[in-house]
């Protein structure tokens, strides 16, 4: 028979130390987990184009459902009453929220979902610690440390981010003396507390302190960052939440968790990179709530005497003679909830045989792809939504460009003035169109806080109004023609 010889025994010991307190999984669970992992990867793959995107969501849902059901069949799972009640509460809480949240509030809603996901990951780490405490091996304790740190900081960080996006919390970058020092000291303290947990797992005091420090660090990390940078931050928190789930996978030795978490970890990371690149800012820059140095021109120097303002009737007359029109939406469109009115104008113009395209800047609005979601909500076919690189070469053949609530993403200074704070950020070249009509409520600046020479350009007309009202008025005037 089999003897308990040294190498075998050592292998058994290792298994016991790292996740080995979980019984080996039955084969069918492993195979279902494997299938779920592949479905998750396929799900992201299929999301790459609108044509297959919904199949992708379905794949993700099936993978998730299969994984949950398989887990319920694990032999060691017993407390079904707790599990089912807790699960049901979650489902019932989520459905109405997910179905009614307005599309303009998607960023903060994603942040809130994150907060819950990260909380779950952190709580599982905590539970593992309290369930097995001293019996855990060093590497497992380290993994629990990562899981908790990332989970708890993402939890509070995401709540702060959501608060800023919903404007419950002040959106301005909040800075106070020694701000970076305090943040880094808190992080340092959390890491030390975490190390103490690993070294003295039996000490009842260090774990709660560790948790408190992590929660605090999440707040300190996000609080100083300005509201406009929140989307980048959310993508980054996305990444942290994923890494936390991955760490949990290391703790309980579950490959599906590792894969799901790693997929999100890299996805969030890439997205925040893409956003930084599209804004021409560095990562560190965003994270430390700094605004890029550079001398913006004085508003009065630019605007003084050069602003030509129009009303709805005049805009309608201009549109009546146009053949090719480009609409460039921006954050103001979301604020004004003007997507449906914009859709109506689109339909009206199309009925009048005008060729209408949308020019979508990658960081228009407050999160990547924000404008696409809003315009899709207004039933605008996505074939008519053109990316920056597609629309720019056409711009010289465009008769009228309508800028609705966008500002920084059409600021020619970014292209032409190397001293501008947003120099180098690629823009949509509306200034190259025949006529530009800019709809916004005032001459106040956009997210970057700098004036926009476009407004004073020879071919630019300002229509000062709320984005939605402006659209509806233009439609009314156009219908009279």
């Amino acid at each position, binding site marked *: 028979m089999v003897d308990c010889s040294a190498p075998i025994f050592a292998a058994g010991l290792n298994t016991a130390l790292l996740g080995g307190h979980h019984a080996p999984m039955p084969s069918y669970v492993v195979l279902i987990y494997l299938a779920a992992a592949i479905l998750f990867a396929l799900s992201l793959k299929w999301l790459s184009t609108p044509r297959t995107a919904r199949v992708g969501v379905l794949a993700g849902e099936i993978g998730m459902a299969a994984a949950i059901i398989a887990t319920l069949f694990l032999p060691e799972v017993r407390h079904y009453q707790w599990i089912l009640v*807790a699960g049901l509460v979650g489902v019932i809480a989520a459905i109405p929220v997910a179905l009614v949240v307005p599309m303009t509030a998607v960023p903060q809603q994603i942040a809130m979902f994150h907060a819950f996901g990260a909380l779950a990951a952190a709580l599982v780490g905590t*539970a593992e610690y309290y369930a097995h405490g001293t019996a855990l091996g060093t590497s497992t304790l380290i993994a629990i440390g990562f899981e908790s740190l990332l989970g708890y900081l993402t939890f509070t960080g995401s709540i702060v981010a959501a608060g800023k996006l919903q404007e419950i919390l002040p959106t301005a970058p909040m800075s106070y003396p020694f701000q970076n020092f305090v943040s880094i000291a808190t992080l340092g303290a959390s890491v030390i507390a975490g190390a103490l947990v690993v070294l003295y797992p039996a000490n009842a005091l260090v774990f709660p302190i560790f948790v408190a420090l992590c929660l605090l660090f999440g707040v300190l990390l996000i609080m100083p960052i300005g509201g406009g940078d929140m989307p980048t931050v959310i993508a980054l928190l996305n990444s942290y939440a994923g890494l936390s789930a991955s760490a949990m996978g290391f703790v309980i030795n579950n490959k599906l968790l*590792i894969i799901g978490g790693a997929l999100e970890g890299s996805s969030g990371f890439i997205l925040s990179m893409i956003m930084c690149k599209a804004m021409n800012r560095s990562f560190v820059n965003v994270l430390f709530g700094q605004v890029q140095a550079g001398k913006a021109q004085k508003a009065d120097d630019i605007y003084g005497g050069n602003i030509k303002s129009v009303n709805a009737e005049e805009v309608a007359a201009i549109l009546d003679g146009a053949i090719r029109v480009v609409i460039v939406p921006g954050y103001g469109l979301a604020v004004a909830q003007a997507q449906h009115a914009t859709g109506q104008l689109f339909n009206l113009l199309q009925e009048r045989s005008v060729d209408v395209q949308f020019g979508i800047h990658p960081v228009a609005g407050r999160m990547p792809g924000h404008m696409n979601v809003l315009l899709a909500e207004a039933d605008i*076919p*996505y074939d008519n939504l053109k990316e920056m690189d597609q629309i720019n070469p056409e711009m010289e053949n465009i008769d009228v460009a309508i800028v609705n609530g966008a500002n920084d993403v059409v600021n020619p200074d970014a292209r032409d003035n190397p001293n501008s704070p947003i120099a180098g950020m690629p823009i949509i070249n509306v200034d190259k169109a025949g006529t530009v009509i800019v709809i916004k409520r005032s001459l106040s600046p956009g997210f970057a806080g700098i004036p926009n020479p476009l407004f004073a350009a020879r071919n630019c007309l300002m229509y000062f109004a709320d984005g939605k009202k402006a659209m509806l008025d233009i439609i009314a005037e156009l219908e009279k023609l």
Partner: protein
Amino acid sequence: MDANLESNLFVFALAAFLGYEVVRRVSPQLHTPLMSLTNAISAISVVGAIAVTGVSHNPALVVVLGSIAITAAMINVVGGFLMTDRMLKMFKKRTVKPPAHSPGQHSPQPQEPNRG
């Protein structure tokens, strides 16, 4: 190195690489649904929450923490998938109305382009 740790490292590295390759192909117009979908997927931690809650000999504190984790994770799962799908449902290939259909990329009546 412990065999589990070893294989977990390989799995993590491969999955992160795969995620990178897959995600960077996602069209920018779908970045918001992407964030929402990966968010839902990372709530796979519900599996860990169930495993930790279910074990019968665990102390009450652990079961309570685990149950809260299940609720939180399920909010993320269900909310994330539903919201993603709601967004994607709005992405339409073409409007069905015939007038909106015909103009397409170029104006149908051949006219001289005029500027402004």
